[in-house]
């Protein structure tokens, strides 16, 4: 199994989720994160003091899938999350050794 971690622009979240459902992805987990990268942040000025906001709001999606689904999921995310402008984000794929569904105790493929 693979854990696919995607860092995307926040307003793309709904589109990405909708792109994954037809592939059979039944669940995913989302966190609010701050990203630092090539995209430069806004400057905020408060009574003459400037603060460059280095960290921009991003959303991190984590979704565990079977190996056979991984490529299609990556592709779907890429398509749905792309705006073509700097700061669109990244996707990282790692292996998972085991997965469990807490409610039933099912494991691995059945757990996803």
């Amino acid at each position, binding site marked *: 199994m693979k854990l696919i971690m995607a860092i995307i622009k926040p307003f793309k979240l709904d589109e990405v989720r909708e792109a994954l459902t037809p592939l059979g992805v039944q669940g995913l987990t989302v966190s609010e994160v701050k990203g630092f990268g090539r995209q430069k942040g806004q400057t*905020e000025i408060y009574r003459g*003091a400037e603060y460059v906001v280095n960290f921009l709001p991003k959303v991190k999606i984590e979704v565990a899938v079977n190996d056979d689904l991984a490529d299609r999921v990556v592709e779907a995310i890429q398509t749905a999350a792309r705006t073509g402008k700097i700061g669109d984000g990244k996707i990282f794929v790692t292996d998972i050794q085991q997965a469990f569904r807490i409610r039933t105790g099912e494991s691995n493929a059945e757990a996803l």
Partner: protein
Amino acid sequence: MSNRLKSILSGVGPALGLTLLATAAWAEEAAAPAAAAAPVTLDTGATAWMLTSTALVLLMTIPGLALFYAGMVRKKNLLGTMMQSFAITALVTVLWVVIGYSLAFTGEGAFIGGLDRFLLNGMEKGALALPNPIPESVFMMFQMTFAIITPALITGAFADRMKFSSMLVFMTLWLVVVYCPIAHWVWATDEKGAAIGFLGKMGVLDFAGGTVVHINAGIAGLVACLVLGPRKGYGTDNMAPHNLSLSVIGASLLWVGWFGFNAGSAVAADGRAGMAMAVTQIATGAAALSWMFAEWILRKKPSVLGIISGAVAGLVAITPASGFVDPKGALAIGLVAGVLCYWGATSLKHILKYDDSLDVFGVHCLGGIAGAILTGVFAVEKIGGTAGLLEGNSGQVMTQIYGVAITLVYTAVVSFILLKLIDLTIGLRVTAEEEREGLDLALHGETVH
């Protein structure tokens, strides 16, 4: 900084002595006689308005100022910042009753009041606060709310880094040796309304506290932030206000409450109160716009912090003038105050490199000075009984400057001494660790979750 401070203060000692002497002489000549014919009786309308005004001015400090300041600090200091205003409210209430009111408003002395009203001794239920047609208890309460907000204003200058215990000690001493005397100098009158204090006698105009409240708090704040030194990380860390919506609520309550501050200072429900309210509103609106447009032009965006700061600058500047000028004068004062305080809070501070965290000096002291001097320019005889420069009374501007200078010097010197004393004994500043952790948890054991 220590050096800069020294050079600023070196000339002060002699100046202080001289001005006090000079003043005493001058005061005698300038004393303004007050008219009083029929016996004054209770005016329930005036009393109703003064009861209301007292509530309005208390509203300015809690929750007004508490929110205005709390929204501008970092989240870890939110509660500690509100705590300062709240605790000062409780503290000054008791101090005022024990001794403050008596020192400020009783006695015959030109420099300090007496102890007749120690613990409010002899304040009868029915007695009036002559020459005003309202009960003395109401007058005492109204003045208490001024004594509360003045030290609370100072806290903005040393936000995020002063020990709570030392803050309480400093404010206790400061109230007694700085606020009460200055209030006496400017505002104490006899039963016929004739000035008793030496600045009042001299003819210094300060309708609602430009000098007594704002210049006073502003210069004390500057001294305090110089003595304490800047916040850790000042100039490098991100110290952006964490929640300006709190500051907008605070500024709004300050604005609304200021009607009690200025129109209440008429101690009447009449045309003078009405005019004071009108000019307060006008100067505030004008200053909010002038700060906003100045920033819009220079920084490309009109900020929320900018417009609310402008409003406060306007409120400060019109305070001394509010019972003396007409709407056109108010418009001028507001426009000047907005731009001047914008410069004070965004340029002057950076040039001089002190960390007056929430711009108590830039807004309250500069705004107060502008207002005090412009009162001398725009005063209209028909409104407040005294003409200003524009009506040909050129001396008034000098009198105003004199009042400002005395206050600046006296407060700076005495505040400096008090702070140094406290620093040497119990210490002024939290530890570096506490400062990093934030006042909420370190000093009060609480956080906003």
